[in-house]
């Protein structure tokens, strides 16, 4: 029965977001991009895509970082159009999407303040989608209690700090733990919010968020090999949702190397199929013998799940999926640009194709 009243609040925006999705770069255009010789050629090719209005005013020798920044500006402009035109149920959903970026910004500001960087530089590096009012005040905080009491208690992230307040001071390891704990709380909160949105949003977003959670679980496990993170602490960072919760998570918490992780992943039909041809080393530089690293496989699966969410109409998942696909596209463009500018054309085809 969702179809009969969905369009009252979100019909126009859904049409707009599907229009954005139609503007994603397709395989023939990627072919053209990979055959560019210089950055100017690349800029010329991108002039036929949705990025044209953001790139045309850049002076000619364009660098990869400027390209990445302008493409992100295009993404932000499109998302902010959606947010500005949204009404109650859909505006809450879009806000939830921005909380992820807010967490990244908070961590960026804390880390930068610890290393005594200039406040203005830090604020410029923050992701625009994750901006909230009291964010610039983060630069004065020195420990987590201060951080919470002065800044975070008014922000939308207040509820996620409950599990972090035990961290005593901010050093390198603790900041990563804070980031992962915040993100875990955010994923669980987002999941329960989507479940309250009703069908079909609930089932489509459940699919996407469960995969995200599984992927974070595996990444936390792999990244914690060889660090001083204890196994109990590691288990506390896993989000409590996904196909791997709770059995595989307890097993993964006790693993010590990649082979054990691979054995656990193979118990799940989907992941077994995915890692069949993979290079299980953690880096994604794609050495000659193998096709894809584990990260690339996760990206490819995420793209597939996000494309599938467009098959149904009248749900909120399309907004989340479009944003993820657009980010993947920007990663692809930056990869191709880096390969071109560093003259390493043999690796230029290792982007994740979308359409």
């Amino acid at each position, binding site marked *: 029965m969702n*179809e*009969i009243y969905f*369009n*009252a609040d979100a*019909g*126009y*925006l*859904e*049409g*707009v*977001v*599907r*229009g*954005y999705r*139609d*503007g994603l770069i397709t395989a023939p255009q990627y072919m053209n991009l990979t055959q560019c010789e210089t950055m100017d050629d690349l800029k010329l090719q991108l002039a036929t895509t949705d990025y044209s209005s953001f790139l045309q005013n850049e002076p000619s020798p364009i660098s990869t970082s400027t390209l990445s920044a302008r493409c992100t500006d295009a993404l932000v402009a499109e998302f902010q159009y959606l947010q500005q035109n949204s009404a*109650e149920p859909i505006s809450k959903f879009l806000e939830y999407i921005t909380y992820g970026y807010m967490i990244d910004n908070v961590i960026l500001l804390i880390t930068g303040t610890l290393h005594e960087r200039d406040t203005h530089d830090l604020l410029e590096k923050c992701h625009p989608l994750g901006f909230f009012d009291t964010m610039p005040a983060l630069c004065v905080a020195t420990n987590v209690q201060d951080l919470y009491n002065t800044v975070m208690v008014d922000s939308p992230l207040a509820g996620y700090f409950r599990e972090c307040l035990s961290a005593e001071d901010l050093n390198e390891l603790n900041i990563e733990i804070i980031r992962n704990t915040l993100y875990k709380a955010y994923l669980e909160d987002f999941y329960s919010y989507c479940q309250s949105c009703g069908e079909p949003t609930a089932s489509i977003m459940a699919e996407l968020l469960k995969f995200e959670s599984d992927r974070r679980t595996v990444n936390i496990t792999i990244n914690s090999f060889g660090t001083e993170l204890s196994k109990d602490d590691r288990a506390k960072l896993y989000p409590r949702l996904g196909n791997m919760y709770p059995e595989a998570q307890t097993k993964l918490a006790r693993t010590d190397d990649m082979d054990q992780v691979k054995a656990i992943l193979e118990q799940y039909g989907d992941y077994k199929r995915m890692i069949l041809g993979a290079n299980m080393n953690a880096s994604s530089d794609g050495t000659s013998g193998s096709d894809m690293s584990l990260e690339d496989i996760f990206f490819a699966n995420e793209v597939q799940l996000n494309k599938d969410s467009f098959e149904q*109409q*009248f749900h909120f998942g399309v907004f989340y999926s479009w944003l993820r696909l657009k980010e993947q596209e920007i990663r692809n463009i930056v990869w191709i640009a880096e390969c071109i500018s560093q003259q390493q054309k043999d690796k230029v085809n290792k982007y994740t194709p979308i359409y």
Partner: protein
Amino acid sequence: MSTYTNYAKTALHTTVAGLAVWAGLYLLLTGRGERFNVGGYLLRISPYMWGVYGISFCIGLSVVGAAWGIFIAGSSILGGAVRTPRIATKNLISIIFCEVVAIYGVIMAIVFSAKLGAVSSEGGFSKSDYYTGFSLFWGGLAVGLANLICGLAVGITGGNAAVADAHDQQLFVKILVIEIFGSVIGLFGLIVGLLVTGKAEDFAGVI
């Protein structure tokens, strides 16, 4: 926001239930229990009431269905046309199909209201008048409900057609076929309405 609507709903339900229980107990305990007579009430309703109710349902529900369908299809067409302006003209067909549903309602209301008339006989209403009243009520309700659901169906399919057309032009005609099947439902309602009221004669009174 939703807690306030929940409070309002609970308050409304409690008030209505409370009044009903109070009225029922009053009648029962003061020996007037037989006054609650649903069958007798229905038999005493005048055929004018039945007939005009039918006509109101006919036009009222048809218009609700048409409007609902138009807003569902229209908002998707607007959203899709931001990026792909070419879909705007073609997809007006979905809006027209929804509008046709309201036209069915109007036509039937006109046909039904031709049977209405004042009865000025001393014997009151005749059996034929009662038949006319009942058939107008149920015929009108049939047309109204069929058009309501038809409007919804055509509207949802129209919304699908708009976004599919924006993505790939060849999909439009295929989804239009589905829409046509949906709009046939309204036509069924029209036919049944005509059949049900076909034998009803104009109001005349006891001759």
